[in-house]
């Protein structure tokens, strides 16, 4: 299997999707000849022409409005939002339109073909407007699917899964991993399932749950904890909405302990939903409170980014605290 970084894996997925189905279109700010500011759409215009891969004017609400219309018409738009921080002008088109299109029409019409890609997350010295993790905003919106990959292999398979899924899907790409995460990626088309979490490591003392770039952080923390003799089970949630309650509950029923981590602020973050659900499902099995290791309840900082981030040491400490409760 060839080795690729996450950007190459994403580019490969888009290439395959466009080759496979001429109804697939890629567009957004600077995605045309330039291939996007991160180059995720490199060469697609050259290969598939300007009518299928193109720059849009600089207007996110227009990009998603346009994409909703295309999807309703039967095309398969893959719209890029340049940074997840700039998805909010399109919030109405996503939350009031994409999410409710099928429901409100009684399934006469739908925008199931829609995929929205956006780089998200911190750790790149981007400050408050190039670092946000907005997944929880969308996870409160029935009708949407929200997906976050952790590495190149997952990115390609989940993106192909998202493009082919008959529901509007947000695909948040951890930009810190774009070039940093390199791994083997199968050639050709393969699709990873949406809505399924993955147990990436089995263990018995405690469950660690995260998504995207936090999976690497969890990995480091788990390595430390296992040296202390703590057996960790690790789950990548992968799809934030609708999320795989069963797999997470099954793990916590076994381990009795859960730590959830994300970069977004604590309050209203998706870890809250998970903790609330799991305390209900696993009440009598919980040996310690479900812990959340997250960003602070502030905008994303710049100079103090290191202090803000839920890094491996903070996750490790949460593991210790949970086990020693």
């Amino acid at each position, binding site marked *: 299997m060839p080795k690729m970084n996450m950007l190459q894996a994403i580019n490969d997925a888009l290439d395959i999707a466009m080759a496979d189905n001429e109804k697939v279109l890629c567009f957004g700010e600077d995605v045309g000849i330039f291939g996007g500011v991160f180059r995720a759409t490199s060469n697609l215009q050259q290969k598939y022409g300007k009518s299928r891969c193109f720059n849009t004017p600089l207007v996110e609400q227009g990009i998603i409005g346009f994409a909703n219309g295309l999807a309703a018409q039967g*095309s398969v738009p893959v719209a890029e939002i340049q940074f997840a921080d700039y998805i909010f002008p399109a919030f109405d088109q996503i939350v009031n339109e994409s999410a409710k299109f099928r429901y409100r029409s009684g399934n006469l019409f739908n925008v199931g073909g829609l995929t929205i890609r956006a780089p998200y997350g911190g750790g790149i010295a981007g400050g408050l407007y190039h670092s946000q993790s907005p997944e929880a905003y969308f996870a409160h919106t029935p009708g949407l699917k929200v997906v976050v990959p952790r590495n190149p292999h997952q990115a390609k398979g989940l993106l192909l899964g998202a493009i082919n899924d008959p529901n509007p899907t947000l695909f948040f790409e951890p930009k810190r991993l774009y070039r940093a995460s390199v791994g083997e990626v199968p050639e050709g088309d393969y699709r990873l399932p949406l809505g399924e979490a993955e147990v990436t490591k089995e263990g018995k003392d405690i469950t660690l749950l995260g998504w995207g770039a936090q999976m690497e952080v969890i990995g480091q923390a788990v390595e430390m904890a296992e040296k202390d003799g703590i057996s960790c089970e690790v789950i990548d949630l992968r799809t934030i909405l609708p999320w795989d309650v069963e797999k997470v509950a099954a793990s916590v029923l076994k381990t009795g302990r859960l730590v959830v981590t994300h970069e977004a602020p604590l309050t209203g973050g998706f870890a809250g939903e998970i903790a609330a659900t799991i305390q209900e499902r696993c009440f009598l099995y919980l040996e310690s409170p479900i812990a959340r290791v997250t960003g602070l309840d502030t905008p994303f900082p710049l100079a103090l980014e290191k202090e803000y981030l839920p890094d491996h040491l903070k996750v490790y400490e949460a593991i210790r605290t949970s086990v020693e409760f």
Partner: protein
Amino acid sequence: MAKTKTSDVVYSPRFTDGAEFKIPTFKLLKQDGTLYKGAKAPDLDRDKALRMYHSMVFTRVLDERMLAAQRQGRLSFYMQCTGEEAAVIGSTAALDDRDMIMAQYREQGALAYRGFTTDEFMNQLFGNEQDYGKGRQMPVHYGSAKLNYMTISSPLATQIPQATGYAYGQKLAGEGLCTITIFGEGAASEGDFHAALNMAAVHRVPVIFLCRNNGYAISTPSVEQFAADGVAPRAFGYKMDVIRVDGNDILAVYEATREARRMAVEDNRPVLIEAMTYRLAAHSSSDDPSGYRSKDEEQKWRDQDPLLRMRAWLEKAGWWNDDEEKQLQESLRKEVLATMKVAQKRPAPPLDSLVTDVYDQVPPALAKQLEAVKSHIRKYPDTYPNSAEQAKGGA
């Protein structure tokens, strides 16, 4: 990149607000049913003209009856097209029936013209089990896949950039079809409007933007909505072709839209049409316009009634007479009433429709939520009389 032609240079500061560049209003038909001097009627045969007129009368009758039904407490809410039938039906008649219509909420005339049946209207209005929308939206949020009429969405202007996208898809499909989106002059203030026009112009999309400038957005008069002379001059900002038309003149609306469609489909040139008209009724059944406008003003516009104008033209053409009018009105009234009575009695949509269509399939956790609702209803059947019977089926 920035371009300047030397010929376009001035050496003293000269400001302009474009006001000297007036956009005229295109008219054909006078209120008495005769054409303006120099005007030429569009090429409409008797059948088509009568199809248009029937749709106008149907819409008027429907609106009258349903507002009355709302007043009687049969219906929760209603919105009338009254006064704007020519703008809506004239434009629709100029399209191919396969063109997509993405409207706002006051365009039932378009749907009537396409052949939405009285029964279909009623099922939506009463949100019963035969409503295509499964009783999920307020009255007047119609939709029809087979008639290429996109289901109405309440958030204003969202359908305008969607129309641009839809039409872009049609262009790629190459079937010679286009999309029309219809919206109010109030909705045109939303950011989505600006995005839609700009993208349509840049990407040369076969879309027609039809603005019904009816003078008000609820209570807000258009002078508090924009300072410009209507919505039309905005087209210049995007280098889009625009035409202003007398919205109460069905022949002019028809002709303008016919030509706009040709430009859109043959030349991939999006077009903005501003139809100058007036909302003769209240904004909705919840509104009382007496708080924000005068009876005099309303009367001035009542004298411009688009139905009377078309009828006068038809009569002059010898295609219509008083008897036919009376008979049509009566039969439509009867039909609307009879159909309403049947539709009103149809049961509500099934309990399961609470959770369907959120996704293509019901996710497991949501299926459980439905089960919980059902078991709760089984416990308190009297509190949920509409669904108690259906809840019995549960696990």
